[in-house]
C-alpha cells in the first residue's frame, strides 16, 4: 500500500518540492525514513507515531518505509512531520487517498498530536503555489503567512483536525482576509533633544541610503539617534516587504498574526555575537543579523568593540548586498543589503569630545584604537559625524521634529535621486580644492561626491552646487582620525 503527500523543503530562502512517499509492507512492524533526512527529521518517527496515537488513529502494524524524494536534497528540520503523518494515514487508508490531491502540508507535530508552526512556512507556501498546490495544510499560527504567498491555508491545531478535514467531516475553515501589515513600534525622533547636526546627518543618511558613523562621548544620544533611523526611511514597497518577510519567516522571527513587514527592519547585534550570528551560517544555514537587516538598518553599537573577523566578514555584504553561506552540498546566498550605522567613542576612555573631561588615554592606546578603527570598515561610512557633548541645559530644550515630517522629505529626495544630478563647475572646483587641503583619500573624494548629490536632492536643487559639496565635507571622517 502506497500513498504520497507533498511538502517543500527550505534551501536558504528558496524551497524545493519534496515528495513524501509512505510504503506499507507486510512483515515485522518497523518504521524507517529514507532520503537524506537529518537528525531532527529522523526524530519525526517518534513524533509521528505518538501524534497518530494521540489523534486516536491507528498506527499501522506494518513494515513502514517513508521515502523523501529527491534523495540528493538534505531534509532538515521538523516540518516534515505533518506530511509524513498524512502519508502514513493515507497509505493505511485512514484518510481517503484521493482527498490529498491538490494539497501540500507543512508543520511539526507535538507528541500529543498538536501542530506547531515551523520557520520558513512563507517560503514553503510560495513553493507550494509554484508546485501547483491549491491548499496548504499548516499550523493554525501559520495561516496568515500562507495567505501572503497566495495559497489557501488549511490551518489546523491538531492532527485530528487535519484528518477530519480530509475525511470531509470538517468544513475547510473560512479563508480570512489577507492579514494587515505587521505593526512595528519604532521610537520617534521627537524624543531627541538638540543634536541638530546629528539629526541632519541622519536625514541625509536616510535620503541617500548612506552608511553613517556617529562618534562622541558616552550618553549623548548616539544609540538613541541610530535607533530612530528606520522611522525616517521610506516604508517598504510590496516586493521589498515580501522579501524581508520571507527572510524573517525563515529565521522563525515573524511576529504572530502574520502580515507583511513594511517597516524597514532594525537589527543591533551585540559586539559579543559570533560571526555566524552576524553573517549567517551554521549547520542549518539561517539568515544572520546582516540578512535580517536586509532593506533596513544594521547598527553596530560601539563599533571598535566588534572583533575583526566579524567586521571583515561584513565587507562582502557591504560590497554586493549578499552573504554566501557554505553548507553541505553547496552554497546558500542570502540577501543582505542593509544600511550600516556605527557608533563609537572618540577614544578608548571616552573623554575626547567632552569639554568637561580630560582624556587619559596613552598615545599608544590611542594609536591602537585608531588602527583598529581604520580596519573597522571606516572606509565604508559615507557620513561620519563627531558629536561633542552638548553644554548643560541643551537637553532640556524643546522636543525635536517628529519622524513623520522628516520621512516625508526623505521620500521626496529619494524620488529625485534618480535624476543623477551633475556638479556645477564651482562645486567641482571646491571638491578638488578640498581634496588637496583636507586629509581626504581618493575614496574620500567619491564619498563626498555621493553625499553632496544626496544633499542636493534633499534641497530639490537642479545641480550639485558648492554649498552642497561644502556641507558634505563637514561629515567627513574627523581629522583627528587621520593625523596625530
Amino acid at each position, binding site marked *: 500500500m502506497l500513498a504520497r503527500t507533498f511538502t517543500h523543503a527550505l534551501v536558504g530562502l528558496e524551497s524545493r518540492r519534496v515528495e513524501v512517499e509512505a510504503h506499507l509492507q507486510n512483515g515485522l512492524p518497523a518504521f524507517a525514513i529514507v532520503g537524506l533526512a537529518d537528525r531532527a527529521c529522523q526524530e519525526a518517527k517518534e513524533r509521528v507515531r505518538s501524534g497518530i496515537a494521540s489523534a486516536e488513529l491507528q498506527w499501522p502494524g506494518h513494515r513502514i518505509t517513508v521515502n523523501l524524494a529527491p534523495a540528493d536534497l538534505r531534509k532538515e528540520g521538523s516540518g516534515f512531520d505533518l506530511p509524513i503523518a498524512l502519508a502514513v494515514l493515507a497509505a493505511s487508508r485512514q484518510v481517503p487517498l484521493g482527498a490529498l490531491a491538490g494539497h501540500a502540508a507543512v508543520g511539526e507535530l507535538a507528541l500529543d498530536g498538536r501542530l506547531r508552526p515551523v520557520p520558513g512556512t512563507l517560503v514553503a507556501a510560495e513553493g507550494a503555489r509554484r508546485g501547483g498546490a491549491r491548499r496548504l495544510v499548516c499550523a493554525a499560527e501559520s495561516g496568515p503567512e500562507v495567505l501572503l504567498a497566495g495559497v489557501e491555508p488549511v490551518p489546523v491545531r491538531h492532527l485530528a483536525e487535519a484528518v477530519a478535514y480530509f475525511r470531509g467531516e470538517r468544513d475547510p475553515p473560512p479563508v480570512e482576509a489577507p492579514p494587515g501589515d505587521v505593526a512595528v513600534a519604532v521610537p520617534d525622533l521627537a524624543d531627541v533633544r538638540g543634536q*541638530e*547636526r546629528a*539629526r541632519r546627518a541622519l536625514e541625509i543618511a536616510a535620503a541617500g541610503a548612506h552608511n553613517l558613523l556617529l562618534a562622541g562621548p558616552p550618553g549623548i544620544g548616539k544609540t538613541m539617534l541610530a535607533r530612530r533611523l528606520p522611522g525616517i526611511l521610506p516604508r517598504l514597497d510590496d516586493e521589498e516587504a515580501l522579501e524581508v518577510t520571507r527572510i524573517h519567516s525563515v529565521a522563525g522571527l515573524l511576529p504572530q498574526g502574520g502580515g507583511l513587514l513594511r517597516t524597514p527592519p532594525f537589527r543591533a547585534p551585540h559586539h559579543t555575537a559570533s560571526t555566524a550570528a552576524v553573517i549567517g551560517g551554521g549547520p542549518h544555514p539561517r539568515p544572520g543579523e546582516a540578512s535580517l537587516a536586509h532593506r533596513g538598518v544594521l547598527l553596530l553599537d560601539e563599533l571598535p568593540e566588534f572583533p575583526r573577523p566579524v567586521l571583515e566578514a561584513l565587507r562582502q555584504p557591504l560590497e554586493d548586498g549578499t552573504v554566501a553561506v557554505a553548507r553541505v552540498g553547496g552554497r546558500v546566498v542570502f540577501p543582505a543589503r542593509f544600511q550600516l550605522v556605527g557608533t563609537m567613542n572618540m577614544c578608548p576612555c571616552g573623554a575626547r569630545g567632552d569639554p568637561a573631561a580630560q582624556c587619559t588615554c596613552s598615545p599608544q592606546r590611542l594609536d591602537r584604537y*585608531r*588602527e583598529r578603527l581604520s580596519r573597522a570598515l571606516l572606509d565604508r561610512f559615507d557620513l561620519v559625524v563627531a558629536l*561633542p557633548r552638548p553644554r548643560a541645559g541643551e537637553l532640556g530644550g524643546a522636543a525635536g521634529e517628529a519622524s513623520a515630517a522628516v520621512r516625508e522629505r526623505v521620500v521626496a529626495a529619494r524620488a529625485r535621486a534618480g535624476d543623477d544630478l551633475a556638479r556645477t563647475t564651482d562645486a567641482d572646483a571646491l571638491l578638488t580644492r*578640498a581634496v588637496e587641503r583636507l586629509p581626504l583619500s581618493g575614496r574620500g573624494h567619491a564619498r563626498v561626491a555621493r553625499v553632496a548629490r544626496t544633499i542636493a536632492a534633499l534641497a530639490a536643487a537642479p545641480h550639485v552646487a558648492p554649498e552642497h559639496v*561644502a556641507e558634505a565635507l563637514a561629515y567627513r571622517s574627523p581629522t583627528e582620525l587621520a593625523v596625530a
Partner: protein
Amino acid sequence: MSELALAVFAAARDVHAAPRETRSRQYEQFAASFDDRAYVDELSQRGFRWLARSDPAFPPLLGAIHDPPPGLFLRGAADTRVLAAPSVAVVGARSCADYGAHVARGLARGLAAAGVVVVSGLARGVDGWAHRGALDAGGTTVAVLGCGIDRDYPRAHARLAAEVAAAGLVVSEYPPGVAPAPWRFPARNRIVAGLARATVVVEARERSGALITADLALEEGRDVLAVPGEITSALSRGTNALLRLGATVVTGPEDVLEVLGIAPRPNEDNGGPAPGSPAAAALAALADGAATADEIARNARLDPAATAAALVELELAGVVTSQGGVYRR
C-alpha cells in the same frame, strides 16, 4: 675620514656617531672596505640622499652645534636650501590636549604662511599637528626622524610623513634599516633644535622630551619660546616652568616672527568671509572661543545645513580648525 662611513658604521654598532669612534681598529677595517659611491648610488635608487657635514649645502646652524651629526640622510622633494632657510622648531607633548593640537597647528600655519620652515619630530601630538599646520598653509616643513631614513615612525604618521616629504624634507642622521629606540630620541631632538633658529614649546609635561629639545636649544644659544597653558593642567607644567625661567611668551605666530625679525605677511591671501555671509556669521559666533556646530548654528541663526557648509568654507580658508566636532578660530 668619510662622514658617510662613520654614519653607517655608528648605526650598525648602535653607537653615537662621534668622531672618536673613527679611532678604533674596527672602524679602520670597516672604512677600508666601505664604498661611498656604491652606498650613495644605492641610497638614490631607494629615493634617499646624503648630505655630508662638509658639504657647503649642510645647514650652517646645525653644523654649529657642539655635537653635529656627520651628515643627514634626506628623503623628499625639496632642495637642501630649505634646511638653511629661516626655521622654527615647534615641539610638545605627544599626548597633547585639543588645545595643544589646535595651537600647534595654528602657529605652524601662521609661520609657514610667512615663509618660515617648520621643523619638528613627526611624533604624535604636537609634532604631528605642527607639520600638519605647515602643510595646511602650503608651506615647507622638515621632519627629523629618530630612526632610519626609510622608516615611518610612528606608523600612524606614515601618510603624514609622505606629505611632509612631498612638500619639504624628512631627515635623519641614521641610514636605512635603523630601528627606532628610546635613546635615539634625545639625539633626534638635538637635530630638531640645531636646525631651527628658535624653538617653540606647545604643551609639555615636566621632564618631557620637548623640554630636552628646549634645553638643547638654550645650550646652543637659540631662542626658546613657550605657549602658556592652564596652570592646573599637567600638560602646562613644562611650558609654564620655561616661561618662569624667561622663555618668550607665545600668543600667536606674530610673537615668533618678531623674535626672528620677520614681518608678518601684511595681506593674507584669504581676506576672510564676505560680510553678511553665513561664513561671516559662523565666524562671529566663534569670537568667544571654541563651540560646537550646534552652538554656532544657534548663535549665528543658521540651520544645521548652512552651518556645516559655512564651517567647511572657513576650514578650507584656514580660519577655523575642528576637532571632535568642536570648532575654534
